[in-house]
């Protein structure tokens, strides 16, 4: 009987997938955020005047130190959003800002710089995405947050999106936590 027990234990140990798949269930946070940003472009509609012409690329800007390095640029360069090629630009400071459709303000940007970029792009059709607490209530359209179940959630300030003439898909709103201005 002990032989059978030993074999059962061996069979359990010999399955390399068991323990490893649990580790693989948890993926890197930055990859999820990159995928979110890419998906936001599919669920939000920009006005026509957001682009100079038909050939203009879809520009994703990153303000601050990008935690995901060049990952975003590498993975999106071969893709298109609404038939437009994608260009990723990095801005070290608000004064470096150039026109873009999505601006990801990383967690390394301080509150003053956040306010500065919000004022600088006021009224422009730019989707500002942040990852700092309360940023959606202070000018960002979408803000990431850590949910209690170890997932990445996002909050949407619909008023901010309206002010920037951005139309958001109902499916996105359904998954988001809706917030208002402070």
């Amino acid at each position, binding site marked *: 009987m002990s*032989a059978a027990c030993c074999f059962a234990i*061996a069979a359990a140990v010999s399955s390399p997938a068991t323990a490893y*798949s649990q580790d693989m269930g948890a*993926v890197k*946070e930055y*990859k999820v955020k990159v995928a979110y940003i890419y998906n936001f472009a599919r669920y939000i509609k920009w006005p026509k005047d957001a682009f100079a012409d038909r050939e203009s690329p879809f520009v994703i800007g990153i303000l601050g130190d990008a935690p995901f390095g060049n990952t975003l640029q590498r993975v999106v360069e071969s*893709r298109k959003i609404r038939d437009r090629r994608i260009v990723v630009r990095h801005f070290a400071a608000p004064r470096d800002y150039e026109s873009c459709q999505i601006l990801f303000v990383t967690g390394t940007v301080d509150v003053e710089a956040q306010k500065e970029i919000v004022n600088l792009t006021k009224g422009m059709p730019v989707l500002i995405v942040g990852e700092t607490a309360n940023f959606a209530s202070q000018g960002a359209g979408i803000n990431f947050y850590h949910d209690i179940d170890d997932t990445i*959630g996002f909050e949407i300030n619909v008023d901010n999106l309206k002010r920037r003439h951005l139309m958001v898909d109902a499916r996105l709103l359904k998954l988001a936590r809706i917030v208002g201005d402070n």
Partner: protein
Amino acid sequence: MFAAIHTGPAVVLYFNIRMIAVVPVVTSGTMINQPINSTFRWLFVGAAVGLMAIAALQDGALTQNAASGDKDAASGNAMLAGDDTLAADDKPASDDDFLDMDIEQLRKTTVTVSSFDAEVTSVNKQESTVGRNLLDNHYPEWGIEDYGYLPTKFAAPFMRG
């Protein structure tokens, strides 16, 4: 003969699955200090064949992984050592795969929190033995229960009586 039949596949399994040597130990009847009846014998044979099939499938998966690993390395995204031992289904999704995930899938995706942000939820209990009276301890390695006194040879002179 029995050992040869069962250790052969086990050794093959060892090199294919690259796991610890527990399978040869279990599948060879000579290494277990108990006689193995015919039921267990057939059980071992069946299990060994099954594991060999799994190993063969994993070899196929490893071949695919090696190919994708070369591709990643070429693009400057060298994979970590050890990734090539994973089956295709267990591999972490590549960056491109994440982009193909729907927003609902992303919302349900669990992420790894950095160690700086992780909250400490438990601590190990540690007790200091400094200043503790030796008489309070147990001495199981000597086969002596806690009788409240030390064995004679370790006891202080005044305790030896």
